[in-house]
C-alpha cells in the first residue's frame, strides 16, 4: 500500500496552522453603532465633531434628588466615551442646555438656560476639546457667562476685525428693553452681542404683538445675522425668519412661513400650527424642520427651505409623514455628504395599526431622509428605541463619509434615561 498517513497528518496540521481567530480591540470607525451614556436621568440636546473625529455631545443630566445640569460627553469615532463633565449653572439651579457650536481651534460654545429663584437666565461658555471651560465666567456662576432674563437658545461667534472674540446669542424674553417697539410683556426674540469679559455690545429685540421665540442664528457672508424663530398670534404659530445687520438691526422686516398654509412670506401672519424645532445650514440656504398639525389635526413634521437671505424656496416645503402613518415631529436636520437631508425627531406614540398592530412602543426615535432639492421624503423612515420608555432623536450631525450621528434620549423606564448616540448609514439605517 502506497498510502502514507503522515502526509495526511502534516497536510492537516498545515491547514490548522494560524487558523485561530484573534481579538481585535478596535472596531472600524466606519461601523454603525449604538452607545449609551450617563447616569440617572439624561436628555441629549446637541452634538459637534472635533477636528480629530471625536464627538462632543451636549446633554442635560439630573441625578436622583439633584438639580439638572449641563452634561458634556466626549466620545471617540467608535462612540466610546473618553471624557465627560458636568457643569452646573449655579447652586440649586435647574439648567437646560440648548446648543453646542464649533468656533475653530477645536473650541466650542455651549449655550442654554438656568432657572433660579430670580427667574430664567441665559448662560453660555466656551470650552476646549478636553471639555474644560476656557471662557471667563461671571460672578454667580462657576462656569458660565450669564444673560439676565433671556432664555438663550443659540450662539455664534462673529467675525471681528479687532481680534477680540465676540458672540451673538439668540433667545427670548418677556423683559422690556428700551428699544422695544411693542411693550406688551409678551415674549420677544432677543439678540445680544457679548464677549467673555462681561462686556455687552448691544441687545436687540424682535417680534410682533404676540409671543416670539428664538431658535437659531447664523452669521451671513455680509457679517449680518440670519435668525430663525417662532411667531405666534393667538393660537396660530408660524416660522419666523429675519435677517439683521451686524448690529442686530432688522431693516427689512421679518418673514413668517407656514408649512401647512398658503399664507407665507413678508408681512404674513402666523396662520397655522407650525413650531420650528431645528435648523441647519445647507448648500441651498437653510432647512427648517419642526412640528405642525395636518388637515386632520394630527401632529406631523414639516420641512421649510429658505435661501441664504431667508426667502422661502418654493416647492420645497413639505409635510413629513412616516411609513406607519403615525403622528410624528421633526426636531433636527442635517445635510449629508450625499446631498440629502437627514431628519430626526420622534413618533410620540408608536402604536401602528395594520402591519405591526398590537405593538405599543410609546415614543420612538424617528429618522427620515429628504431630497435636498425637492424636499420630498426619500425611501422609508426608520424608528428606534425601547419599548418601555419615551425615546427621541434630538440632534443629527452629518459625517464626512456620508453616515450620520443622531443624538437621542433613550428611556429605559422608571426614571432611567440615557443619552444615546446612533451612528447610522446614509439611509438612516443601523446597518453597515
Amino acid at each position, binding site marked *: *500500500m502506497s*498510502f502514507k*498517513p503522515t502526509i*495526511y*497528518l502534516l497536510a*492537516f*496540521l498545515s*491547514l*490548522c496552522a494560524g*487558523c*485561530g*481567530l*484573534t*481579538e*481585535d*480591540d*478596535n*472596531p472600524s470607525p466606519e*461601523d*454603525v*453603532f*449604538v*452607545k*449609551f*451614556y*450617563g*447616569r440617572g436621568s439624561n436628555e441629549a440636546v446637541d452634538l459637534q465633531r472635533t477636528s480629530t473625529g471625536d464627538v462632543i455631545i451636549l446633554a442635560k443630566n439630573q441625578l436622583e434628588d439633584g438639580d439638572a445640569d449641563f452634561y458634556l460627553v466626549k466620545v471617540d469615532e*467608535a462612540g*466610546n*466615551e*473618553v471624557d465627560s463633565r458636568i457643569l452646573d449653572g449655579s447652586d440649586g439651579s435647574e439648567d437646560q442646555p440648548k446648543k453646542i457650536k464649533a468656533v475653530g481651534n477645536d473650541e466650542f460654545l455651549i449655550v442654554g438656560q438656568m432657572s433660579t429663584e430670580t427667574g430664567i437666565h441665559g448662560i453660555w461658555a466656551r470650552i476646549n476639546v478636553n471639555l474644560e471651560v476656557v471662557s471667563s465666567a461671571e460672578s454667580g456662576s462657576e462656569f458660565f457667562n450669564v444673560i439676565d432674563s433671556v432664555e438663550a437658545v443659540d450662539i455664534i461667534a462673529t467675525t471681528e476685525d479687532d481680534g477680540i472674540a465676540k458672540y451673538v446669542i439668540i433667545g427670548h424674553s418677556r423683559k422690556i428693553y428700551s428699544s422695544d417697539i411693542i411693550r406688551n410683556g409678551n415674549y420677544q426674540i432677543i439678540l445680544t452681542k457679548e464677549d467673555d469679559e462681561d462686556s455687552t455690545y448691544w441687545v436687540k429685540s424682535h417680534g410682533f404683538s404676540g409671543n416670539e421665540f428664538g431658535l437659531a442664528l447664523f452669521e451671513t457672508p455680509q457679517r449680518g445675522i440670519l435668525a430663525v424663530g417662532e411667531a405666534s398670534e393667538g393660537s396660530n404659530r408660524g416660522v419666523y425668519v429675519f435677517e439683521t445687520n451686524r448690529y442686530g438691526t432688522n431693516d427689512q422686516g421679518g418673514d413668517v412661513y407656514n408649512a401647512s398654509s398658503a399664507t407665507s412670506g413678508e408681512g404674513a401672519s402666523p396662520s397655522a400650527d407650525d413650531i420650528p424645532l431645528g435648523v441647519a445650514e445647507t448648500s441651498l440656504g437653510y432647512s427648517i424642520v419642526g412640528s405642525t398639525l395636518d388637515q386632520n389635526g394630527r401632529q406631523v413634521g414639516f420641512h421649510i427651505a429658505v435661501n441664504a437671505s431667508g426667502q422661502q424656496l418654493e416647492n420645497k416645503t413639505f409635510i413629513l409623514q412616516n411609513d406607519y402613518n403615525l403622528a410624528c415631529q421633526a426636531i433636527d436636520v442635517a445635510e449629508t455628504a450625499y446631498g440629502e437631508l437627514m431628519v430626526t425627531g420622534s413618533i410620540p406614540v408608536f402604536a401602528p395599526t395594520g402591519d405591526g398592530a398590537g405593538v405599543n412602543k410609546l415614543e420612538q426615535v424617528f429618522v427620515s431622509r429628504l431630497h435636498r432639492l425637492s424636499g420630498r421624503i426619500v425611501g422609508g423612515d426608520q424608528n*428606534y*428605541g*425601547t*419599548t*418601555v*420608555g419615551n*425615546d427621541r432623536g434630538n440632534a443629527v450631525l452629518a459625517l464626512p463619509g456620508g453616515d450620520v450621528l443622531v443624538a437621542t434620549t*433613550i*428611556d*429605559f*423606564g*422608571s*426614571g*432611567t434615561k*440615557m443619552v444615546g448616540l446612533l451612528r447610522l448609514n446614509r439611509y438612516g439605517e*443601523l*446597518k*453597515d
Partner: protein
Amino acid sequence: MKPTYLAILIAALMMASITTYGQSCTQRLNDAEDDYEAGRLSAIPDKIERCLESEQFSKEEAVRARRLLTLVYIFTDQEAKAEGALINLLKEDPEHRLNPQVDPAELFFLYDQFRTAPIFRIAFRAGINSSSPNIIERYGTFNLHTHSNFHNGKDREGNDSYVVEGDSSSNDYNSLSGLGFGFQGEILFESHLGKGVELGIGPQLRLSQYNTDSYVNQPDLNSSLTNQQLNIRLPVLFRYTLNYDNRDQKWLPYVFLGGAFDYLLTAKYTEANRAGGTAYSISSSDLIASNQVNQYNYSFFGGVGTKMRVGTHFLTFELRYDMSQLNYINGENRYQNDESTFDLAFVEPDLSLNFLSVTLGYTLSVYQPKKLTK
C-alpha cells in the same frame, strides 16, 4: 390418555431428543478433533457440518469446529473449501487469532491471504460541551474603554469581576451568570488507513449555549443573556491510536485532529433580561429569522482519548476542543434587532465559538472477511 398429557409427553421427548443431539454435537466435535490428531481427515466434515448448520455448537465450539474444517480442507488439498471454511471461521470469530504453538504454518499462510481487519467501525457517541466564545472584535452599547462583556462568567482577562478606575460608584462589576453547557451526539464511521491512523467521518448534532452579561456603564443597568445554538455538523478526523494493532492491549490511547462543516439549525436567546430602569425580558427570539447570526461555519478540532477493548468493539472516552473559524455573529445586522439593541441595551461582539467537550462512545467493528487480491 387425555390430549393434554399427550402433548406434555411429546414435548418432553422432543426436549430429550434435542439435549441428546446437542451433547452428541459436542461429542462429535471432540471425536473429530481426535480424528484430526490421528490423521483421519476424510470423515471429519460429515461429523461436524450438520451440527454447524443446525447451530448446535456453542460459540466456542463453533470456532473450534470451523478451524478444524479449515485445517481438514487445507490438508486434503481442497483449496476452495479451505478458503470458504476460513471465511466462515472469521465470520464466527472476526479477530480469530492463530497460535504458533498449535496452528500449522499452512493455516498461517492461508490466513495471511485474507482480510481479517474490520472494513470499518461505527461509533455512537454522546457527551456534554461547554462553549467558550472567542472575541474577534468587541462591540457593545457600553464604553469599550472601561467596560467589558462577561462570557460564561469571565471577562476578557478571565476574571469574574472588574472595577472601573475613577468610577464614582466605586462598585465592582460582577459577572451575573456562569458556564453555558450543552450536549452533542454523533455517529462516526471510521476506517483504518494504516499504521494506527484512522479516518473518521459522520454527522454530529450539537446543542450548545453561552451566557453573556454586560453593564451599561453603571452597576444598576445591566443585561444578561443566554444564546443557544443547535448545529448539525459533519466532522472529518484523523486519529492516531497507540498500539492500534496490538490486540492484547485493553486500553488504547489516541490523539486526533479534524475539521468539520457546521450548519446552524436554530439559534435563540433562551433567556434575555435587562435589569435597571423598567426591567425588560425577551420571551423568545429567533436569531436566524432576524438574520443576527451566520448559519454556515467550519471548525478545526483536536483532542485525546482512550479506547477500552470490549471483544472486537470499544468503549471510548475522549476530551476534545473545537474551534469555529468564522464569525458566529452577522455583523452587518448586529444592531438591527431593536429589542436587543435598545430594550436590552445589548449587541453581540464578533465572536467565534470554541468548545471543550467530553464524549463517551461505543464503537462497533464491522467485518467482511475475504481473500485479498494479490
